[in-house]
């Protein structure tokens, strides 16, 4: 039987690109998401292109009962789980409307725990498996332009870091992926600097490479590691006056 990987966010551009890379090396794929039609299209494409089994389940990350329902129906233990749901939201709106701020944090962080805790416990018990979380460079330092999204991603990165620490002796690999700019549906219409901007496919290739090499944290494009290092070492006294 093929190994299989669960993609939480199976219609996200990055999620689907990562699914394609795992399918390419022979993994069966299970896609989760809200849009049934799009999930079906993606699952069919994966199975036709890569000669593997692909299926999908409905899951709305904001609807906790749909997570319960999925966990009740999904009886198998996957070999890997990827969390690729992200919501950029509207920073200005989130500053004024708590609902928007809460939605950003729930999607990017809080509700991810409901599903990742479940599989982390399973993996710990069977002493194998991998968890890959798509976080963001935005979580490395709070900036005025997107700090609510950034703080949710910071929490998500910290959660993954703790999980990695807990499971490192249990043969369970936990990877934090920190993309910089990526051309996706989420960033459609934003002016992005060409040299620093990656594509979902490039992100997916970096993820697979990092997964094979047992990396803990993957910056993609890799130059973002150095950009964020530079941004992180600026003293707060100076940083607070910047506008980046």
């Amino acid at each position, binding site marked *: 039987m093929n190994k299989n990987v669960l993609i939480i966010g199976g219609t996200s*551009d990055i999620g689907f690109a990562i699914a394609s890379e795992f399918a390419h090396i022979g993994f069966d794929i299970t896609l989760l998401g809200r849009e049934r039609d*799009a999930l079906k*299209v*993606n699952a*069919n*494409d994966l199975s*036709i*292109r890569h000669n593997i089994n692909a299926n999908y389940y409905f899951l709305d990350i904001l609807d906790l009962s749909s997570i319960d329902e999925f966990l009740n129906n999904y009886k198998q233990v996957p070999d890997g789980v990827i969390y690729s749901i992200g919501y950029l939201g509207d920073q200005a709106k989130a500053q004024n409307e708590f609902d928007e701020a809460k939605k950003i944090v729930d999607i990017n962080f809080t509700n991810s725990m409901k599903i990742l805790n479940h599989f982390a416990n399973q993996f710990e018990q069977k002493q194998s498996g991998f968890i890959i979380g798509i976080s963001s460079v935005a979580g490395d330092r709070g900036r005025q332009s997107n700090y609510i999204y950034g703080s949710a991603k910071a929490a998500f990165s910290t959660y993954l870091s703790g999980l990695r620490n807990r499971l490192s002796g249990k043969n369970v690999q936990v990877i934090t992926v920190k993309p910089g700019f990526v051309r996706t*549906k989420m960033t*459609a219409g934003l002016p992005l600097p060409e040299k620093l901007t990656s594509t979902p496919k490039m992100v997916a290739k970096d993820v697979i490479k990092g997964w094979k090499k047992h990396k803990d944290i993957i910056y993609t494009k890799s130059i973002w590691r150095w950009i964020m290092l530079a941004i992180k070492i600026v003293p707060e006294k100076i940083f607070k006056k910047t506008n980046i």
Partner: protein
Amino acid sequence: MLTSGWGNYPKVDAELFSSSKIQDIISYIGNNNNLIPQGFARSYGDSALNGHILSTRKLDHFIEFDSEKGIITAQAGVLFSEILQIVVPKGWFLPVTPGTKYVTLGGAISSDVHGKNHHKHGTLGQYVESMDILLANGEIKHCSKSENSELFNSAIAGMGLMGVILSATLKLHKIETAYIKQKVIKTRSLEELYELFEINRNYTYSVSWIDITGGARRSVNGLLMLGEHALREDLQVNKEKKDVIAGNPLDVPFYFPNIVLNHSTIKIFNTLYYAKELKKEKNAITYFDSYFYPLDIVNNWNKVYGHRGFLQYQFVVPLEHGLQAIKQILNKIADYGQASFLTVLKTFGKRNDFVLSFPDEGYTLAMDFPLTRGLFPMFDELDKIVLDYGGRFYLTKDAHLSPETFRKSNPEIEKFLEIKAKYDPNNKFQSLQSKRLGF
């Protein structure tokens, strides 16, 4: 964004839109006019260019593949190279393929592409079982030979002007191996070449390269290339070949200076190519990739023509007096001191039912010309000769025809426009080409 077709001419400022979501595409069509769908932008001239370009490249999912019956359904933006990767290992092949595998399914249908097997198998459109087309009003219509057949017959070869092809179902061709049994014959004159086309008409694939650098007043050297899908037994003698899809094509990462490709370099190339084939006849078993797509090995080969770009000139003339027409054309080109880098000659079979489809029974000649000042006046004269002999032109390669020449050579345009008025009453879908040609 400055963009162009494969010939790098003309270059236009256009807005490029692409989405994997049908709903977004529908809103884009609703909010914009002056739109043209585009696939991989491999048509040479201005047929897939306009102010707003709706790229189908993000509609790149496979929908269904029946590997028993050889029927595949995919969204319009998948490439032929991607289809081949899936179907060849299961014993199937594209029913018709052009000389590059870097074209999208939707683009190839809109051009109703032909290949080396036209004389036997016709065009790609003849193997389309059904399509989903997004119309200007946002409605999606399923069409086939029996359902919405008028739309079906005009969208195939419709140059994207009827609506956006979203997905299509294609009947594939059964093969035993991924190899082609190839025979190359050297020819010393056009007459000899014609005779050999005739004698070898039962071959599935046939095409010739000719050296036209001296015009037709002296002998025209040529290579006739014939091919059949190799059977398993044919491979017994060539066991060392492995069943793999070719790797990444090489890049041509820079533009050659414009000066490199003048008349004499082309002549040297043609002489060399012809001399390479020493014997009169050569037989070989070759992987399908190198047989069908020799130029794909050099990614961006179009850039050898430099920044100024190049134009293709492809026409078909009826069999009767066809030889005479081609000789006149070659002499005219020689008189102008122009030369074509690669000249392809082939016989076409019968015409199909698709309203604007190009191939017609006769001889087709395709030539590349680097863009120079004298080129357009020469094209005007060639157009006259083609018209005199009752020929027609391939829109997918055109960037120069006049509205008058186009209408004379394509009397079907009136019928096409009548049908278009039904499906696109406000003329949302237009290309620079359709505007230039006045339809």
